[in-house]
């Protein structure tokens, strides 16, 4: 059954599954009037009884977080709802440079995101929702501020405000964002306590990705059964995915999970050429050889069986004329520079790993030793930080060594494998290096 095709509605007419979230266009966001016309008003969820109903719908829907961790949303909301005077934080910071899905969602459909924050606030009993975006992301700030202006007359019982967090890679991490909101640097903190126990101003805090919240806004109106008409039974709903590289129409699209990657890439205009490999899951993701990757179903389960994950829902298609090792080396340097510098094994380990990958990518004199060194380093670095940064970066580098073993051998013999040196993976190093 092609889940990308249309489904048959009650009257026997085809009812399109998509789009759910990506209404409107980045240049022409959905206005409040249009939004209310399409979806109707957000039901005012009364306390206690209404809360429990919504939480149960979320549980039944099987909605999982779309921010990278994939944690069941209902479980998170329930944990926060248990606390006193909780706070909701909508995470639209999108620190992953290759990913653009959150920015696109906010640009196209800001009211759905705000609805989601409000619905989540109802569900956990909060009267305060903070919408966090990246400092350089002026468009998202503007869209959300404008949307709040449009909604002012609704007099929603939730206080809403937009904040602009530092643009560091780790600043979107849950505890880092909370740390910054509490007046500290946007660096991860030691857990326990977790944010759902003690977060913003010491209160139970729900930090949820904007795409997840947008889904909550829809489930609050239409219920769990409707939500499950998309996607698979195990992984219901739609997913916003960013695709870059050797496709005809790179960008962001809303897809259903389930079909193999080859079919998903059709939504992006299809492949321009036969690729060398795919990077699945962003910079904490894994490289997979193209022949394997294209046949893999885009689901957490299928990717997991291959040692990969959806992660930041970003896929980069590496063409044959680019060198995967050179790309990896550049990103490894970036990830090392983006360490918060709080944990010795991350700060020093990622720098050493980046240097070793650089040796291999350039075929330097110490390249033969660099391989063995990398494996030793990886064992010392992964899992020993306060957050996932060193673990994710290590996994990314190790996958590159596996997939690009042939290139590494050729580099050792002094032969570069590709013609193009144009960078593919973005590694922004020119921006402000601030943490506050």
């Amino acid at each position: 059954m092609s889940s990308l095709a249309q489904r048959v509605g009650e009257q026997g007419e085809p009812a399109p599954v998509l789009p759910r979230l990506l209404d409107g266009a980045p240049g022409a966001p959905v206005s409040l009037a249009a939004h209310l016309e399409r979806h109707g008003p957000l039901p005012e969820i009364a306390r206690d009884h209404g809360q429990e109903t919504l939480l149960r719908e979320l549980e039944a829907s099987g909605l999982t977080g779309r921010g990278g961790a994939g944690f069941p949303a209902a479980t998170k909301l329930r944990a926060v709802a248990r606390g006193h005077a909780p706070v909701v934080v909508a995470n639209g910071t999108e620190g992953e440079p290759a990913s653009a899905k959150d920015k696109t969602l906010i640009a196209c459909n800001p009211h759905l995101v705000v609805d989601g924050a409000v619905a989540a606030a109802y569900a956990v009993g909060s009267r305060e929702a903070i919408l966090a975006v990246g400092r350089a992301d002026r468009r998202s700030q503007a869209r959300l501020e404008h949307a709040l202006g449009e909604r002012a007359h609704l007099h929603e019982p939730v206080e809403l405000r937009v904040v602009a967090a530092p643009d560091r890679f780790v600043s979107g991490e849950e505890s880092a964002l909370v740390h910054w909101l509490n007046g500290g640097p946007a660096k991860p903190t030691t857990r326990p306590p977790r944010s759902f126990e003690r977060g913003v101003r010491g209160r139970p805090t729900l930090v949820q990705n904007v795409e997840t919240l947008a889904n909550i806004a829809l489930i609050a109106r239409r219920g769990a059964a409707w939500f499950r008409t998309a996607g698979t039974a195990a992984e219901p709903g739609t997913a916003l995915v960013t695709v870059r590289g050797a496709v005809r129409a790179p960008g962001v699209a809303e897809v259903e999970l389930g079909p193999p990657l080859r079919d998903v890439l059709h939504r992006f205009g299809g492949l321009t050429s036969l690729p060398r490999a795919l990077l699945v899951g962003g910079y904490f993701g894994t490289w997979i050889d193209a022949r394997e990757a294209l046949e893999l179903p885009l689901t957490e389960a299928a990717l997991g069986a291959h040692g990969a994950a959806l992660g930041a829902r970003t896929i980069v298609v590496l063409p044959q004329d680019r060198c995967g090792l050179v790309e990896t080396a550049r990103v490894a340097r970036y990830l090392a520079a983006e360490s918060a510098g709080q944990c010795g094994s991350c700060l020093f380990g990622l720098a050493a790993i980046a240097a070793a990958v650089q040796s291999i990518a350039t075929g330097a004199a110490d390249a033969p030793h660099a391989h063995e060194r990398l494996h030793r380093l990886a064992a010392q670095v992964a899992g020993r930080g306060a957050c996932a940064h060193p673990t994710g970066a290590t996994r990314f580098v190790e996958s590159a060594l596996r997939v690009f073993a042939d290139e590494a051998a050729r580099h050792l013999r002094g032969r570069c494998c590709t013609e193009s040196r144009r960078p593919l993976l973005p590694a922004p190093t020119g921006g402000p290096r601030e943490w506050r």
Partner: protein
Amino acid sequence: MGSLTAAPVWYLMRGSGVVTLLLLTAVVMLGVATTSRWRPGRLPRFVTLGLHRSISLLAVVFLAVHIVAALADPYAQVRVLQVVLPLPLGPYPLWLGLGALSLDFLVAVIVTSLLRHRLGRRTWKSVHWLAYASWPLAFAHGLGMGSDARTAWFLALASASLAAVVLAAAWRLLGSRREHDKYLGAPLESGGTA
């Protein structure tokens, strides 16, 4: 002053005071050595910290003797309250008052250190900086009190102690500016893990 030979309790007070100052000098140096990860030869690092703690407790013992002797000495005329509070009483109100302040800070440092795990690192650390206030006050107290402060041996000891603490404090202040947030130690002889 009456007799030509001073009472034994005066010698005890003076002697234990000097020893306390020397021990506290060692404590400050060992504290700075710990922070700078100084290793005495092939000895393990915990020796430095262990000595810092042990000698500070030894200093407290000598300090207690010093205070009791001072209270017992009829010529010193120290009121009990003056041990902890600077008061305008007796023949040496200023120098005694400095000693009282020094004691207050030292007690705060030691008590918070003993309760470190319960207070948390930030509280403990902020109070610990008072040690750099306590030592100069103790030093001034030692110089200002008593008639043997002009003797050669005392001045020699005092100068040496002052020099040691000034050097240690300078080392601490200069060393605290590091390239990284984190400390990168010297590579170990016996390597890391496989």
